[in-house]
């Protein structure tokens, strides 16, 4: 009997020891994304893009001879879930890096936890900009990339009077501030601005206020399913003013989901959408996008849409892998150092380089037009647009560690 017990104990011990050796052979990537809930529609392609990148890297032998392993939790579009699972990834799963979050609110919910644990974190989503954090890297587009391209182009084409409607919380407020500043810099006039609570679903009065102000361009920084009703209602009322945005089309593919003409006459700047290679019929962007889509569809043939956040997620994993390769270790401080040495990755829409000062990525920006019958065209491509603002404003992470979010009206103290 005693022998059997010793046998069991020793075999258990050896399994534990052996599995420890096994675990040491992988690099653990923690992923927190909203597989269900409000944001799921835009997030599911993102999750598949992480998986695709990991699979491709592992097929080539992994990083530093180790395989990448994903530890993933469904955060259910709920900020408290984000905090709970961020702690679990750090404390229990002991991951080497965390990727994820869709909304700015959820990113801000986990950033303090990340910073406290000195965890390395990649946020792979377009957002309102301004996060200057030693532990955080951003592969999504920011306002100086989306708005300083889009707004002047629209003003040039349609006129200088701009009206903004925006969701009434940090994303909308800060994005609207960017629009205001860029309009002013380009000699335009803000003829109106309205912040709308996320609960509002009826827009007749907003539409009339816009008509009374007679803008040439309407910036719609609307978030969530209720506010998305604006597009159908403005089309039904025959508003007919060119619209610009940073959020629609490139995330939740409204141009595919809504019946035309709801989104006709909409302009949006994205760093990737799956139409890139069918609209641009030759050259670098055509080839890269076509190649990416072929690999994506081979793995996930039923994906309804491959959006810009999918490209950002794919880039993030690859950029992390390059940094670990360069650092020769997964030790976080060393990886951050490698990332700050200027890592670039040639992704689905061209080269993305990490700006050492602000930890944000440069992007190719496609100006997308949604035309008659929601047909997509790309009237202009902006090459290699830098995330310049934070660096110019005084964020310099290699020199000075920081853990804050800044806005144009509240820049870093110099």
């Amino acid at each position, binding site marked *: 009997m005693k022998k059997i017990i010793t046998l069991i104990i020793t075999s258990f011990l050896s399994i534990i020891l052996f599995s420890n050796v096994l675990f040491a052979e992988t690099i653990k990537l923690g992923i927190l994304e909203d597989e*269900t*809930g*409000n944001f*799921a*529609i835009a997030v599911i392609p993102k999750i598949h893009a992480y998986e695709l990148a990991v699979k491709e890297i592992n097929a080539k032998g992994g990083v530093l001879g180790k395989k990448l392993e994903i530890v993933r939790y469904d955060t259910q579009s709920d900020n408290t879930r984000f905090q709970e699972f961020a702690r679990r990834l750090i404390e229990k799963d002991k991951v080497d890096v965390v990727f994820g979050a869709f909304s700015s609110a959820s990113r801000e919910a986990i950033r303090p936890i990340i910073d406290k644990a000195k965890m390395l974190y990649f946020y792979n989503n377009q957002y309102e900009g301004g996060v200057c954090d030693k532990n955080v890297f951003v592969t999504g587009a920011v306002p100086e990339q989306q708005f300083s391209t889009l707004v002047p182009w629209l003003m040039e084409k349609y006129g200088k009077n701009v009206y903004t409607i925006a969701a*009434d919380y940090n994303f909308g407020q800060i994005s609207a501030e960017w629009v205001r500043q860029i309009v002013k810099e380009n000699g335009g006039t803000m003829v109106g601005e*309205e*912040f*709308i*609570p996320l*609960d*509002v*679903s*009826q827009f*007749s*009065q*907003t539409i*009339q*206020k816009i*008509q*009374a102000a*007679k803008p040439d361009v309407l910036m719609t920084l609307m978030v969530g*399913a*209720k506010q*998305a*009703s604006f597009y*159908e*209602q403005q*089309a*039904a*009322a*025959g*508003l*007919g003013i060119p619209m610009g945005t940073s959020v629609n089309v490139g995330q*939740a593919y409204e141009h595919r*989901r*809504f*019946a*035309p*003409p*709801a989104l006709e006459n909409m302009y949006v700047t994205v760093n990737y959408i799956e139409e890139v290679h069918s609209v641009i019929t030759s050259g670098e962007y055509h080839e890269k996008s076509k190649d990416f889509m072929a690999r994506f569809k081979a793995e996930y043939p039923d994906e309804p849409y491959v959006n810009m956040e999918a490209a950002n997620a794919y880039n993030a994993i690859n950029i992390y892998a390059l940094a670990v390769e360069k650092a020769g270790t997964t030790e976080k401080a060393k990886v951050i150092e490698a990332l700050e040495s200027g890592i670039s990755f040639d992704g689905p829409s061209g080269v993305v380089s990490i700006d050492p000062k602000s930890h944000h990525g440069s992007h190719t920006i496609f100006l997308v037009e949604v035309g008659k019958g929601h047909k997509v065209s790309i009237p202009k491509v902006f090459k290699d647009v830098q995330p310049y603002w934070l660096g110019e404003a005084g964020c310099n992470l290699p020199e000075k560690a920081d853990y804050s979010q800044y806005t144009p009206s509240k820049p870093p103290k110099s």
Partner: protein
Amino acid sequence: MIMLFNIVYQFGDALSFLLLSAIGLAVIFGMMKIINLAHGEFITVGAYGTVVSAKAFNLPLPIAMAFGVIITIIFGLILEKLIIRHLYGRPLDSVVATWGISLIVSQSFLVIFGPSLEGLQTPLGNFKLGDYSYSEYRIFLIFFAFILLGLLYILFMKTSFGTLARATIEKPEIASSMGVNISNVYSVTFAIGAGLAGITGALYAPTMTVVPSIGQAFIVSAFITVVTAGASPFIGLIPAASFLSAVQTSVTFYYKATIGIIALLFSVILIIRFLPKGFSGLITKEK
């Protein structure tokens, strides 16, 4: 002149939204005293019934809408038979039960249909007056809300079914002893309430993003309108909704949407404080 039309249009648009939000709840909560937190989900059923049938069978919109309403009536009848009938006269229990129903229904829609449906196009066109343009469908909604409310008033106040329904809900024992089949009357009245909520869902489905939480957009408006309407909802509904939409549109017009909503909710508090019987109490001189 255009300015005046604008004001009437904005006011009418807000008014029709409040009336149509509240109309099903006016029967279920206003008359039957069931605090129905699943009211929003009845609207969701109507909206999904409309959109799904329009897409799946290529139905013309009015027929798809009728289909959505019928689905909601059936859904209401089943719910009444299984759960609601055990909760008559237990208002607090009905809160918990209907809240549970609302969670189950909205999550089921998410599981079955995914996070969002491809939308329908708003019917009818638009017309211009000066610098402004207006959706004809929105104007149709204003008239439709009034017609629907008129029909409901006639049904419950002028027909023998209405008398039976009111008698049953007021004094079930006496009605029963007079030979009224109160169980049937309850079922039919509840189904009417559900069907009205289904109409709201069907009417707004082409104008909104169709998601499992679409009904939530209506629920606050529905409750505040029914509560301020008071004890006789069919009399109080129009004055209550008119007052509330006048407050909301004028404040939103001069300030902004956020302040408009605050003003709306604040005026509800004032009404409940100073007119505890609501607008219908003011009209019927009840104290």
